[in-house]
């Protein structure tokens, strides 16, 4: 009812009411973007309220319904795949409230999504292919249930198609991702001794990659290149210390601001706007550029 009218009336400079459905307090990637978005919204004088559904899709649907009750102007959802929130998105749509997703993809009722998967893997995977010269053995630490990871692995698969890289894939569990990274790397290292073929480990996010780094240190190996994604402090430190070859960083402040910038448009356009995907700025962090990187983003290690 009322939500649709508010949405239609809205224009830049108005005060909006925005509901944010986080993913889980334990997911730093989305948390960073949500927080900077909330900060940006506050700066612009919008009223916000956020809920943490602790990773449960059912709870997220509930949270969206609660925001529909509250008659907010826009709902932002983090990470949950947009087509796995059906009842919530439908309720929002019929109340005329558009939904923006961080990393969940667009669908009917979710006109805008910030990509959080495939784009993040691109520069770093290119780097990996270049480093290994397109041949060698690669240990992939993947996580199928997570949508961002699926996108990243798709990018990896696409880039590996033309190469002579032999892949061993392991599924890491969450929680327990770091330890699993260590275990899988250790076992893989045992059957891949130091030798002629280039060796690399690619994690679809930093945690298992860091686990792999731990395995390398424990076994005293320095012949394996490790790649991760997200640019967590531990990963950036490992890159700086030369233990890790590269990680990919997305600046939450930039992306949060990007979302805040499009917010008035999305609200104005309403639920039936054309679907579009926002691409983040992805920074590959390598030993070569890590100092410059840290100068640019001093907050990473803070």
């Amino acid at each position, binding site marked *: 009812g009322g939500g649709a009218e508010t949405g239609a009336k809205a224009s830049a400079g108005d005060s909006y009411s925005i*509901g944010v459905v*986080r993913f889980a*307090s334990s997911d730093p990637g989305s948390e960073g973007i949500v927080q900077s978005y909330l900060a940006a919204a506050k700066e612009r004088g919008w*009223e*916000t*309220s*956020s*809920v*943490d559904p*602790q*990773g*449960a*899709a*059912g*709870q997220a*649907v*509930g*949270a969206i*319904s*609660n*925001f*529909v*009750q*509250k*008659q907010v102007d826009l709902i932002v959802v983090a990470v949950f*795949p947009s*087509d*796995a*929130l*059906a*009842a*919530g998105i*439908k309720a929002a749509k019929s109340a005329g409230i558009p939904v923006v997703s961080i990393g969940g993809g667009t669908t009917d009722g979710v006109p805008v999504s910030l990509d959080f998967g495939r784009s993040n893997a691109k520069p770093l995977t290119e780097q990996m292919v270049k480093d290994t010269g397109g041949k060698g053995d690669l240990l992939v630490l993947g996580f*199928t*249930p997570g*949508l961002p990871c*699926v996108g990243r692995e798709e990018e990896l698969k696409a880039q590996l198609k033309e190469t002579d890289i032999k892949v061993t894939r392991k*599924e890491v569990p969450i929680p327990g991702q770091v330890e699993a990274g260590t275990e899988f790397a250790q076992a893989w290292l045992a059957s891949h001794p130091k030798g002629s073929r280039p060796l690399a480990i690619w994690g679809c996010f930093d945690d298992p990659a860091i686990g792999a780094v731990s395995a390398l240190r424990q076994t005293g190996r320095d012949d394996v290149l490790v790649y991760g994604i997200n640019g967590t402090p531990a990963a950036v430190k490992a890159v700086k210390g030369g233990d890790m070859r590269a990680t990919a960083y997305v600046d939450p402040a930039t992306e949060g601001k990007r979302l805040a910038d499009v917010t008035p448009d999305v609200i104005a356009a309403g639920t039936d706007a054309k679907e579009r995907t926002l691409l983040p700025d992805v920074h590959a962090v390598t030993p070569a550029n890590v100092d410059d990187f840290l100068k640019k983003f001093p907050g990473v290690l803070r």
Partner: protein
Amino acid sequence: MTVIVEDSIKEASASSSSTARVVWRLIGQYGTIAMLGLLIVTMTALEPSVFATSDNLVNVLNQSAIPAMIALGLTFPLVTGDFDLSIGNTASLSGVVACTLMRDVDMSIWMAISAAIMVGLVIGLVNGVVVTVLNVNSLVATLGVGTMAIGVNYKIAGGQPVGLSDSESFLEISLGTLLGIPYPVYIMIGFTAVLWLLLNRTVLGQSMQAVGGNPVAARLSGVRVERVRLVSFVICGAFAALTGVLLASRTGSAAVSGGDGYLLSAFAAAFFGSAVLRDGQFHIIGTLVGVITVAIGFNAIALTGMATYWQYLFQGLLLVLGVGVGSLARRRTAAT
């Protein structure tokens, strides 16, 4: 009855502290419900135009429906004195099975749902057999069986979410309304009534309570303890599966870990509920009150827009105080 007469005599004799005792007894009995009332009153005062509306009431009940199913099912093993840690995984698996059957085999909705519930029954049966025949502690047994359920889930869906191409009629289960009230609310009320009758008005239910209260005594008076425990696991599995199906119909897809989050919330609701009206006994109404309290808490969080850390502190406090106030009062009653 004579007992009542005796009771009131004692009541009268201890005249000095009797008002205090009555107050404590009331708090002991209704403390948990009073906490819920306090929450509702506070929220009504804070957000009168949004919280205290019939729309929002329906919304909260609708949100309670799915967690209620799984928590009500869990109540049965808890009553017989067992734990079931596999319910989250069962819910995930049953959702995946239902969606896969509908998507890949083109099975009709009701057939697919029945198959999914069969999955729950089978898991419940396996749990029950491992616990009663292999004689494994229910915590380890259900943890193990639940882990195996994850394996089966991976085998079926490869870890990827299973979406539905034509999901309208399936979604209708969650979205459809009758007299302005969504179907899930009816489902919740209906099953609550059925399960309440089962636990309180049938010999099976009484046997379950007896087994939970004192398995040796139950066995000596002719209750087939093993069978009763097995049945409680089967009921629990079936309701976990139902939860998975409802969840899939609410989200329009099923994920390998979609139902996992309900494990702890179901335990929280059931244990919270065990402090409602009674002292540490699991019962159907209590569990329902637990689920609804948690849902109202969550609703309050969304409506007031508390900071994330407050959300956690609030949820934690709600649990501890909700149970603690009643318990403390009961202890006081016993002491005076």
